[in-house]
């Protein structure tokens, strides 16, 4: 039994979500191979080779894989995947985009977003916005799985010394192309990796007011998140959305400011260790999951909090 992990990377460095997938694979058990498919991605492959627990790195360096286009990458992964018992990727937007395509090419199901490994074929995953946890057994010979990063510790980035093997296969389906991207640039930690997050909702009123949260974030080394309502209203960009259909986070401290606590938002943050809610409505559902609730006007409470840190 061997497990193939599809690495998440930007051609230079390995994304942290890969490390959580390695831990999930370790719990499944078996030899662990990591595929780094990209263009000019040797450095990412080298980084994968030194991750603890990784036995081999497959490096597919080809222009066709530069932007991880699903049409191209899925063909490569399906071709390699036939020799494995499990094909695993982090449940990031890249993993979610590519892996079901791989599963269909292999004529197997995908088990999405697992949060627990019970055995080599049985996994737990949240359904209905996290209001239920399903234990699912895969009946397929090859198990295609995406892994929820917050549910598994990150594997150590040092300690491994896997060999890097080149894969020649070049798949260019020729039906899609990359046009461009708008990548949010920020000096703050990534939402999914941050240990402290302060998020704002519709109660923030507008985008400028997010500066109040940024100032607190600077002091706490925190990432800044948002509810869907805040993103929809155009206060902040989409990559800041936390929730069922946004990012799943589980920091040590999550501070929800002017967020009511709809189930779709809770689905993305209720596994945080400590939750703080600041809301002027004492009936807001967010208080039912908050360890510390403060009923207050955020425009007074947040500047005061900022001053006391």
């Amino acid at each position, binding site marked *: 039994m061997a497990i193939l992990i599809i690495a998440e990377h930007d051609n230079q460095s390995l994304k942290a979500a890969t490390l959580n997938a390695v831990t999930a694979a370790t719990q499944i058990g078996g030899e662990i191979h990591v595929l780094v498919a990209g263009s000019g991605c040797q450095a990412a492959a080298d980084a994968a080779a030194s991750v603890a627990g990784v036995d081999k790195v497959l490096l597919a360096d080809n222009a066709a894989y530069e932007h991880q286009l699903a049409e191209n990458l899925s063909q490569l992964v399906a071709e390699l995947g036939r020799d494995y018992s499990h094909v695993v990727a982090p449940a990031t937007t890249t993993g979610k985009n590519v892996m079901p395509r791989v599963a*269909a090419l292999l004529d197997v199901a*995908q088990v999405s977003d697992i949060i627990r490994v019970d055995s080599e074929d049985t996994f737990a995953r949240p*359904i209905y916005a996290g209001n*239920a*946890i399903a234990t699912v057994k895969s009946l397929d010979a090859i198990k295609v799985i995406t892994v929820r990063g917050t549910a598994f510790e990150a594997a150590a980035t040092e300690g491994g010394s896997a060999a890097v093997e080149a894969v020649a296969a070049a798949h260019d389906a020729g039906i899609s192309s990359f*046009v461009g991207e708008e990548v949010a640039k920020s000096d703050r930690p990534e939402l*999914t990796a941050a240990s402290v997050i302060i998020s704002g909702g519709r109660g923030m009123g507008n985008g400028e007011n997010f500066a109040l949260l940024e100032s607190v974030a600077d002091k706490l080394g925190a990432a800044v998140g948002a509810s869907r309502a805040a993103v*929809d209203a155009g206060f902040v960009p989409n990559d800041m959305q936390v929730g069922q259909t946004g990012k799943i986070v589980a920091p040590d401290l999550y501070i929800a400011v002017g967020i009511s606590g709809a189930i779709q938002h809770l689905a993305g943050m209720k596994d945080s260790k400590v939750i703080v809610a600041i809301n002027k409505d004492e009936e807001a559902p967010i208080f039912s999951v908050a360890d510390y609730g*403060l009923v207050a006007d955020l425009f007074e409470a947040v500047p005061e909090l900022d001053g006391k840190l």
Partner: protein
Amino acid sequence: MKVLVTVKRVIDYNVKVRVKSDNSDVDLSNVKMAMNPFCEIAVEEAVRLKEAGVASEIVVVSLGPQAAQEQIRTALALGADRGILVQSDENLESLTVAKLLAKVVEDEQPGLVIMGKQAIDSDNNQTGQMLAALTNMPQGTFASEVKVEGEKVQVTREVDGGLQTVELNMPAIVTTDLRLNEPRYASLPNIMKAKRKPLDTKTPEDLGVAVKAHTQLLSVEPPAERQAGIKVASVEELVDKLKNEAKVI
């Protein structure tokens, strides 16, 4: 150009689902059902393409029990032209749904298939990508903008780092994200009119697809409940608790 739209019948997104006491599944008896919110967005996008003169016909497909007709009728009231129900009372996994849809695509030959990115019951986020693989079409998943230009479609996608734009040859598959559009409501006259629009019913056997189980649901548990916390009276108390009790700052 013909546009195919898929709509799934799911629990209403405002309803908090409960787990059955024997932990065999969630309890859907007497629960309000509705069209999956992402599918509403898919229907809206198709209707806008038709209004813009890009789409000529909108075919809406749902797979599931007889009652899924209601969601097809809703889509017809919103502006779709005709419906297809692939009726089955069995549990249809994403791969099976994709195989059935691949047959419908073969029959209908649409230029664009618009689907939701995720069904809010299973939270699978798979079916569109699987259909794309089975039909060898390109995919624009998690779309926040769709622009048809001649034989190609440009799709802006919501990705973890921000936005990514790809160009796809048509026919292509698009899956919707929340910000693609704001769905309209159906007017009463349109709801009445929708009752007379054609709705075909087929079965998986008609389409020549065997319904196969690739997974087995062993149990369903409620999630771990959080301990109820406390209310603090002031920012000062909050900072003190975070420093000295929770020790997180």
